[in-house]
């Protein structure tokens, strides 16, 4: 089974809509929201393990199979590239059914959750997230049989992004 990429690069694809990251950073400078305000309002998550257990089900998380492929230092907190992949079969009786991303220090740690089927072919997504300050980021995958896999990394943020 091969992976077919297409000729359109991500850069040109994003370019079509303009420099989104730059716009976001500019907004911070012209006196939009203050990151400090957002941070004050944001009580840290009480217990990330409890939240994950509630969302993804109880049980031990094997820290394997999941990969967060992003640099540990983000230049722009408004636009942190977040490619996440799970090295696991996607067969009728054995597949990854769910993948969730958490940022520990966010007031609402769950950033996004993705549900797959065997027809997905591969449990892999890429998106961009916002972070106002350094935090641990976790990706937790669940198989259709309820097994949990995960990865964790700390991301430093040079310039906090658009709060949140």
């Amino acid at each position, binding site marked *: 089974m091969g992976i077919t990429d*297409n000729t359109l690069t991500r850069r040109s694809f994003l370019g079509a809509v303009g420099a989104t990251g730059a716009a976001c950073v500019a907004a911070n400078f012209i006196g*939009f929201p203050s990151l400090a305000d957002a941070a004050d309002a944001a009580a840290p998550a009480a217990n990330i393990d409890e939240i994950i257990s509630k969302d993804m089900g109880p049980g031990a998380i094997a820290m394997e199979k999941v990969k967060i492929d992003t640099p540990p230092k983000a230049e722009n907190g408004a636009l942190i590239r977040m490619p996440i992949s799970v090295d696991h079969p996607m067969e009728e009786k054995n597949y990854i059914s769910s993948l969730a991303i958490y940022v520990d220090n966010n007031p*609402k740690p769950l950033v996004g959750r993705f549900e797959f089927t065997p027809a997905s072919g591969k449990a892999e997504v890429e998106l961009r997230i916002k972070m106002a300050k350094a935090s641990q980021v976790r990706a937790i995958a669940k198989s259709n049989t309820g097994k949990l896999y995960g990865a964790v990394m700390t991301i430093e943020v040079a310039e906090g992004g658009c709060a949140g």
Partner: protein
Amino acid sequence: MADIGEPRVRGPEKPLKKGELALIKTLIKHPMESGLRKDKETGNVIPAHFIEEVSAEFGGVSVMKATWSGAISKNPFFSFYVKADKSGPLTVTWKDNKGEKWTEKAEIKVE
């Protein structure tokens, strides 16, 4: 609001072999306001306005469903895979917390 919508979905341009994986890239204009930011001048909280659901169908079957928060970047790029076992439209739908909805599709071609 001007800077919202214009959804885009791109699949592989060349036909795939049956069973190959197709990388699907999507993009939409959206403010993705978390509802946690304050307007510095008024002190008022900027109301939450973000896409909370993204789903994809291929050949009438759901292949991916995502739940998003306001911590996803503005004008969100998002990519995922689908197994190309036949030709057909891959339809992506975005829904935001104000009930607005956008749909766009890409044709998947299998030799």
